[in-house]
C-alpha cells in the first residue's frame, strides 16, 4: 500500500520539469543559504509569489528544494567563513572552521554535506513510513486535540527554545495579537482596526517573515561589519572520495545524530537544540574528547546530521497535521493555502498525488542537492566575495520586491520595513523571532480550535483533559511550558549546578 503510493510520488517527482524545478530550487536555495540576511524562511517567502501560476506539486517541489539548498548552504559559510548562516549551523563552526584553517576545508565540507544527506534521508524514510499513519490518527482529531497540539507547539518554544522563556512567551503572545487584528471571520466583527481601512486585512506572516528575518538580519550584519575572510575551499574529487572512505568510522555518530534530529525536529524549534545535543553526545562518547573544537571531523558530522534530520522532520507535522514545525515550514503551509489546498490530514486522501509527489521529491531533491553542492562549492563560496556594498542593497531590494509581490500592495512594503526594525531590536534583546512568526501563522487556526472546543464543553476548560488523546498532549504541553521553572528546582533537589542555557532559536 505504502510502496505503490511512493511509486506514484516518484512518477510525479521524476518528470523532467519537476527535476528542473528541483535543480533551480537547490541552486537558489544554496545561494540564499550562503548570503547573509537571507535564510530558508525568507528565501521561500520571497519566491512564493512566483509559484502562484505553477501547478501546486511543482510549486512545493521548488520551495522544498530551496529549503534543502539553504540547509546545505548554511554549512558552506559555517566551515569556510566561520559565519553560521542559520542558528543550527552554529555547532558546525566549532570544528568546521578550524579544519578549514588547517587546509582540511574540502574534507570538512564533504563530511558536512554527506552528514546532512544521511540525516535528511533518515528523516525522509521515517516520514514515508509514519506520515500516513499520523495522518490517519489525526483524521480522528477534534478541535480539542488540535488546540492541544498548538499548545504543545508553543510551549515547546518556551521550554526548549533556550534563552529567556518569558521573552519566548512574549513573542508568542505578540504574534497571536497581531494575528487577531482585522476581521474576525466567526462573528464578522472588526478587531483592533480603529477605523483604519488598511488594518482590516490584518498582518500577513509572509511579510513579517521577510521583514523580521530579511531586513532585520541585514541590519544586524552591517552593524557587526561585514567582513568575510574565508579559508580556501580545497575541494576536489580526490578529497571527496578520501573523506567518504573515512566517514563509515563515524557510523554511530550518524545514527545517534539522525535519531536526535528526528526526535527533536518534529517538535518546533528543534533543529538548534538537536544540533547542539548531537555535538555534545559525540564529544562525550568520543575516545578523544580533547580534540573537539580544534578540528575534529566527528564534530562536523554530529551537528550536521542532527540539524538536517530535524529540518526535514519539521515537514512531518506540516503535511499531516497542518501545523508547521519551523518558520520555513510555516511559509510553505501559507503556500499550500494560496494554491488552494487544505493543509492537514485530509491531504493524504484528497490530494495523494501532491503529498506523495512531495515525499518522493524529498528523496530526489536531497540526492540532487548533495551532488550539486559537492560539485559547486567554489561557485557558492565565490558569492561571498561579492563586495558587501553590492550585496547589502541587493538583498534589501529583493526583500522589497518579494514583500510587494505577495498582495501587490505598497502598505506591505512599509510593514516589511517596520518588521525589519522590530526584528533588529528583538534579536538584540534576545526575543526569539520564530515563535512570533508561527503564532502569526497559526493565530486564526488556534483561536477557532479553542472556540470550538469551548463550545463543545459549554465553556469549560476540562474538555482538554477528559478526552484521552487531548489529555496526553495537553499534559505534555504543560510540562514543557513549566519546564523552565521545574528544571532549576529539580537540579537543586539533586544537588547539581544550574545548566547554562542554550542560545535562543532565531
Amino acid at each position, binding site marked *: 500500500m505504502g510502496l505503490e503510493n511512493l511509486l506514484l510520488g516518484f512518477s510525479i517527482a521524476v518528470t523532467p520539469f519537476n527535476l528542473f524545478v528541483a535543480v533551480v530550487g537547490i541552486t537558489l536555495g544554496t545561494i540564499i543559504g550562503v548570503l547573509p540576511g537571507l535564510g530558508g524562511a525568507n528565501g521561500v517567502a520571497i519566491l512564493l*509569489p*512566483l509559484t*502562484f*501560476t505553477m501547478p501546486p506539486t511543482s510549486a512545493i517541489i521548488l520551495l522544498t528544494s530551496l529549503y534543502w539548498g539553504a540547509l546545505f548552504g548554511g554549512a558552506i559559510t559555517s566551515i569556510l567563513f566561520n559565519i553560521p548562516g542559520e542558528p543550527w549551523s552554529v555547532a558546525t563552526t566549532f570544528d568546521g572552521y578550524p579544519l578549514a584553517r588547517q587546509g582540511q576545508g574540502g574534507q570538512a565540507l564533504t563530511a558536512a554535506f554527506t552528514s546532512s544527506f544521511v540525516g535528511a534521508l533518515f528523516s525522509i524514510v521515517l516520514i514515508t513510513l509514519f506520515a500516513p499513519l499520523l495522518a490517519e490518527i489525526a483524521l480522528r482529531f477534534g478541535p480539542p486535540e488540535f488546540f492541544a497540539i498548538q499548545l504543545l507547539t508553543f510551549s515547546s518554544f518556551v521550554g526548549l527554545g533556550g534563552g*529567556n522563556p*518569558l*521573552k519566548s*512567551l*512574549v513573542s508568542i*503572545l*505578540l504574534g*497571536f*495579537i497581531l494575528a*487577531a487584528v482585522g476581521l*474576525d471571520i*466567526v*462573528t464578522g*466583527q472588526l*478587531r*483592533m482596526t*480603529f477605523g483604519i481601512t488598511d488594518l482590516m486585512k490584518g498582518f500577513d506572516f509572509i511579510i513579517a517573515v521577510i521583514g523580521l528575518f530579511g*531586513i532585520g538580519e*541585514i*541590519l544586524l550584519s*552591517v*552593524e*557587526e*561589519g561585514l567582513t568575510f575572510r574565508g579559508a580556501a575551499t580545497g575541494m576536489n574529487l580526490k578529497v571527496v572520495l578520501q573523506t567518504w572512505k573515512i566517514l563509515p568510522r563515524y557510523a554511530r555518530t550518524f545514527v545517534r545524530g539522525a535519531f536526535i534530529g528526528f526526535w527533536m525536529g518534529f517538535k518546533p524549534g528543534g533543529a538548534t537544540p538537536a544540533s547542539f545535543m548531537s555535538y555534545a553526545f559525540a564529544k562525550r562518547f568520543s575516545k578523544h574528547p580533547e580534540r573537539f573544537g580544534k578540528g575534529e571531523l566527528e564534530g562536523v558530522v554530529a551537528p550536521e546530521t542532527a540539524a538536517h534530520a530535524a529540518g526535514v522532520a519539521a515537514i512531518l507535522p506540516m503535511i499531516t497535521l497542518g501545523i508547521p514545525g519551523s518558520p520555513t515550514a510555516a511559509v510553505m503551509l501559507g503556500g499550500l493555502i494560496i494554491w488552494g489546498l487544505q493543509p492537514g490530514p485530509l491531504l493524504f486522501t484528497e490530494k495523494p498525488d501532491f503529498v506523495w509527489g512531495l515525499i518522493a521529491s524529498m528523496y530526489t531533491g536531497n540526492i540532487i542537492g548533495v551532488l550539486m553542492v559537492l560539485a559547486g562549492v567554489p561557485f557558492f563560496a565565490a558569492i561571498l566575495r561579492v*563586495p*558587501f*556594498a*553590492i550585496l*547589502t*542593497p*541587493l538583498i*534589501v*531590494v529583493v526583500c*522589497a*520586491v518579494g514583500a*510587494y*509581490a505577495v498582495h*501587490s500592495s*505598497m502598505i506591505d*512594503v*512599509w510593514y516589511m*520595513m517596520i518588521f525589519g*526594525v522590530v526584528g*533588529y*531590536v*528583538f534579536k*538584540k*534583546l534576545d*526575543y526569539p523571532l520564530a515563535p512570533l512568526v508561527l503564532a502569526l501563522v497559526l493565530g486564526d487556526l488556534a*483561536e477557532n480550535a*479553542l*472556540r*470550538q472546543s*469551548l*463550545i463543545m464543553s459549554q*465553556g469549560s476548560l476540562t474538555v482538554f483533559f477528559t478526552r484521552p488523546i487531548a489529555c496526553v498532549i495537553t499534559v505534555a504541553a504543560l510540562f514543557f511550558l513549566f519546564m523552565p521553572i521545574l528544571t532549576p528546582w529539580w537540579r537543586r533537589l539533586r544537588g547539581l549546578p544550574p545548566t547554562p542555557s542554550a542560545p535562543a532559536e532565531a
Partner: protein
Amino acid sequence: MTRTADLATAALLLLIGLIAVVDSLRLGAGWGSDGPKSGFFPFWLGTLLLVVTVVIAVQAWRRGPGKPFVTREQLRPVMQVLWPAVAMVALTAVIGLYVASALYLAFYMRWVGRHRWLTVVLISIGIPVVTFLVFEQWFLVPMPKGPLETWLGY
C-alpha cells in the same frame, strides 16, 4: 544601554497589550449566545502579555544598565542602510519600483562602497532589468510602475 532598550521595548509591548485588552472589552470578552465573543481570545492574550511584560521589565531593571545597546559606530552603518531604504520605498509610489531600486542600488554602492561609476551604473541598471524580466515577463507578477515604464509602453 541595554536596560533602557529593554524597558522601552517593554513599554511598547505594554501599550500593545493594553490596546488588545481595551478593544476586547469593547467587543465583549465573555460568553455570547453562540460561544466565546470576539474579544475573548485577544482579551486573555493581552492580559497575559501585560503580566509577562511587567515581569520582564522588573528583571531588566534589577539586572542593571548592562552593555550599551548600540554604539555610535555600530548605528552608523545600520542607518546608512535603513534611511535610503525608507527613501526607496517612499519613492516607489511616485516613480515605480524599478527606478527607485536602481537609484537605491546606485546611491548605496557609490556612497558607502565607493565603487567605480561604471560598476555602479551597470549593476544598478542590470538588477532592475533582471527583476523586470523575471517577475513581469516570465512569472506575470506586476510591480509598481512609474512614468518611465509608461513612456516605454508598459
